[in-house]
């Protein structure tokens, strides 16, 4: 108990120190700012005297000389109001709040003062940032459909979404997160469709974030997820503006952070992680079949090597008669029991994947080929693994790549290891027990407070139209009910079914 008490005291002290930070005087601030080499204060004294201060690294000097100075150097100026009147710019703020000045100057505003030690100043916005060009999506590539992906600038990203939803109900709420990074985080939703409770949950959770720096939206993903110990991602992470736009129109909420080329969308369900956005670009029959294939691939990826271990260790009765000779012959030379064989091979595949991911893309390819072909063949010839298992593990790895959401495919990679251990201890029964554990975990899981395996449990028959299979657009007349949209209907079903073609 003493141990716990001590900890509490320490925490209190820490929070106290945070709150006392509040008092700062103007000269102190200027001293702090000037300590940086890239902060410059220029005295302008042509017709009237005033001081311009800014960070050279945040403000484009061209802007200062072309768009700012010419308007105010030619005219006699008495006070800051005069300057504000003559500048053809918007977003200027006149303030004597030291904290406001500190925040704005560090975010790329230009400070204009009449006197050097005057605490009142005019803040002129002039942030210039270096932006990456909008490029094609890489992790969620699709052959047909839009080829735009988000970039690191929040404003550009919002532009990409807003131009797809040109309606006044499209609402962006902005919050700053992170004590040091002060990252702009936008909560995006369509007013009148999205459930207010979902929006409020998202806003509340984001404002509650206590952390010093938030670099990427994946930080937020982990910080606001309902269960942060779960290996399953609880918000979808996407780089496609078209996907975000379509998800918003379903009544979901999107979260974007400045500096992150990914949007988070939620509340989400597990089936959404296995639906690629390309599914909507294909005919519904094809899309449905591909979705089912993907689901089977996931099951195969998770269960194939555990089942191999279970069957070979405990249930030789299950092996079909024709496969028996092949299996025994391939296993005969191997010195390891099936579990070791499987773990060694699974780990080496993971090793290859990690190595490939950490290396530059060109070297990564070589690693893939060297690992896949050379090591695989050599391992079989050296008698370290059986070729049957090599095929199973390679196929399982391949199958795990079919998952369209990267975070989910990582989860699937990891998921087979507990299955392997259970298979080794209790055979197929162990696999079943592990499966029960996972299913019960999924049942308990929520995404922004909404059930995670929603269309399946609780059963929402209407939502099943776009879950394991995707039915044609003409029957997708309702928004997913598990999201609880305010406006439930996507379209007028009757009008959608009318045909206006002239038939003779």
């Amino acid at each position: 108990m003493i141990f716990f008490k001590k900890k509490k005291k320490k925490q209190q002290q820490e929070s106290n120190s945070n709150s006392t930070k509040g008092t700062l005087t103007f000269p102190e601030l200027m001293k702090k700012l000037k300590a940086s080499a890239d902060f410059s204060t220029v005295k302008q004294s042509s017709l009237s005297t005033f001081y311009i201060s800014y960070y050279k690294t945040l403000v484009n000097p061209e802007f200062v000389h072309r768009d700012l100075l010419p308007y105010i150097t030619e005219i006699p100026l008495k006070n800051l109001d005069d300057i504000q009147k003559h500048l053809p710019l918007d977003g200027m703020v006149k303030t004597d709040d030291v904290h406001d000045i500190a925040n704005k100057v560090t975010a790329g505003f230009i400070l204009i003062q009449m006197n050097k030690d005057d605490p009142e100043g005019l803040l002129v916005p002039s942030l210039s940032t270096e932006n990456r060009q909008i490029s094609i999506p890489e992790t969620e590539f699709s052959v047909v459909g839009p080829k735009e992906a988000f970039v690191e600038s929040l404003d550009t990203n919002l532009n990409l979404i807003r131009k797809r939803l040109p309606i006044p109900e499209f609402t962006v709420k902005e919050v700053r997160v992170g004590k040091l990074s002060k990252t702009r985080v936008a909560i995006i939703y369509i007013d009148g469709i999205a459930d207010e409770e979902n929006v409020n949950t998202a806003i509340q959770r984001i404002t509650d974030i206590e952390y010093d720096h938030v670099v990427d939206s994946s930080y937020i993903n982990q910080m606001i997820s309902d269960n942060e110990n779960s290996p399953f991602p609880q918000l979808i992470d996407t780089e496609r503006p078209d996907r975000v736009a379509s998800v918003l129109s379903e009544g979901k909420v999107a979260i974007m952070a400045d500096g992150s080329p990914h949007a988070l969308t939620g509340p989400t369900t597990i089936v959404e992680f296995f639906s690629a956005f390309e599914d909507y670009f294909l005919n519904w029959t094809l899309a449905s079949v591909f979705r089912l294939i993907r689901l089977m691939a996931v099951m195969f990826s998770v269960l194939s090597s555990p089942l191999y271990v279970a069957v070979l260790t405990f249930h030789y009765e299950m092996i079909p008669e024709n496969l028996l000779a092949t299996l025994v012959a391939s296993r005969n030379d191997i010195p390891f029991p099936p579990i070791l064989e499987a773990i060694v091979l699974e780990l080496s595949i993971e090793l290859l994947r990690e190595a490939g991911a950490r290396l530059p893309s060109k070297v990564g390819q070589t690693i893939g080929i060297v690992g896949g072909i050379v090591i695989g063949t050599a391992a079989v010839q050296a008698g370290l693994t059986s070729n049957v298992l090599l095929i199973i593990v390679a196929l399982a790895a391949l199958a795990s790549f079919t998952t369209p959401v990267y975070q989910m495919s990582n989860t699937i990679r990891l998921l087979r290891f507990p299955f392997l251990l259970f298979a080794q201890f209790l055979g197929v029964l162990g696999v079943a027990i592990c499966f029960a554990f996972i299913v019960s975990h999924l049942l308990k899981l929520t995404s922004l407070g909404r059930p995670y395996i929603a269309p399946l449990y609780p059963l929402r028959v209407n939502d099943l139209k776009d879950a394991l299979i995707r039915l044609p657009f003409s029957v997708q007349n309702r928004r997913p009910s598990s999201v609880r949209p305010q406006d439930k209907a996507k379209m007028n079903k009757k009008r959608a079914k009318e045909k206006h073609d002239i038939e003779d």
Partner: protein
Amino acid sequence: MVKKHLIIVFTLFLLTGCFPSKKILEDVQLVSAVGYDYKSNNQVELNGMVAIPQRGEDVPPISQVFTATTNTSKMARALEQAESPKPFEIGRLEIALYNDRLAEKGIYDLVDTLQRDPSLGRDLYMAIVYGSTKTLLKQQYPLSETPSKYLLHLLDQNMNANIPKSNIHDFLYRYYGKGMDPNLPLLEKQGDRIRVVGTALLKDDKMVGQLKLEDSFLLKLLIEPFEKGIYEVKFKKDQFFTIQNLKSKVEYEFKDVKRSPSVDIFVNVRGRVSEAPKIPVSDPSLVEQLERAAEKAMNKRTNMIVKKLQKAKVDTIGLGDLARSRTRGFDFKQWDDQYPDIPINVKVNVEITQAGITE
């Protein structure tokens, strides 16, 4: 909460002894066929055939037979174990063979040990062999890699066509069930071939009679609907044709079961003439004649088979059970007494749908 979790984790460590024992595939000796031979009144010779896979991709497995003679089959397995480098596992057993002398004495005790083994499936084939099962299992057959594979495929395809279906499940069902008796395929080793020679008729677990292969087809017609099989019919002098069964159906009609029962069995065979040398089958008027000839021949033969069953007091068709299922207050004792003398009438109806194209 933490304490609770710690206790759970700690108990898991204590439970490590409770894991099921491992039977890693390549560390066990899988018995794929067993044969039982009669030795003396109490002693049975158990022959277990194992297929030992060879190193390399395309090398077929070698079969070996382990033999021991004891009073109980489990003890025999223990004795055979003494010669084997790996422990025997019986879970992949494909077929159990019984010597004909043994079958005449009764095989239930031997089937019972198989029945009680939870690792065995219910689709295990059983067969009765004329002569020694040991020599049958020891022979290398050019037709297949191992004798067990040969036997498995042999029975598989013959049970689709000419002999009644029968595995350990059917055997036990018919053994335990009242008003029916089991049947098993009858095999014989001929040189480097194994041949299905017919069907063994069993009363309880004892073989009391045999049917030839041609008659087995007719027996199958009486027992179950099926879609294959061939039967040869004599048409006129020196003229024969074979009829291939496309679809057969059997119906039973019982009359006055409680006092003086009589049974009518209607068999509908839809078939095609698959071979008819010297007969101009393309003539439509002839088809009717062929149908009548086939019906006549099959009627005569099936009625003979039924008489034979009645004489041996075996109810291979399961008529007693069928009668029970249709009669309220059915008396098995009375039926069993009356069975040999019940008038059983088989009427075969043949319909020839095709006569032109043959395979």
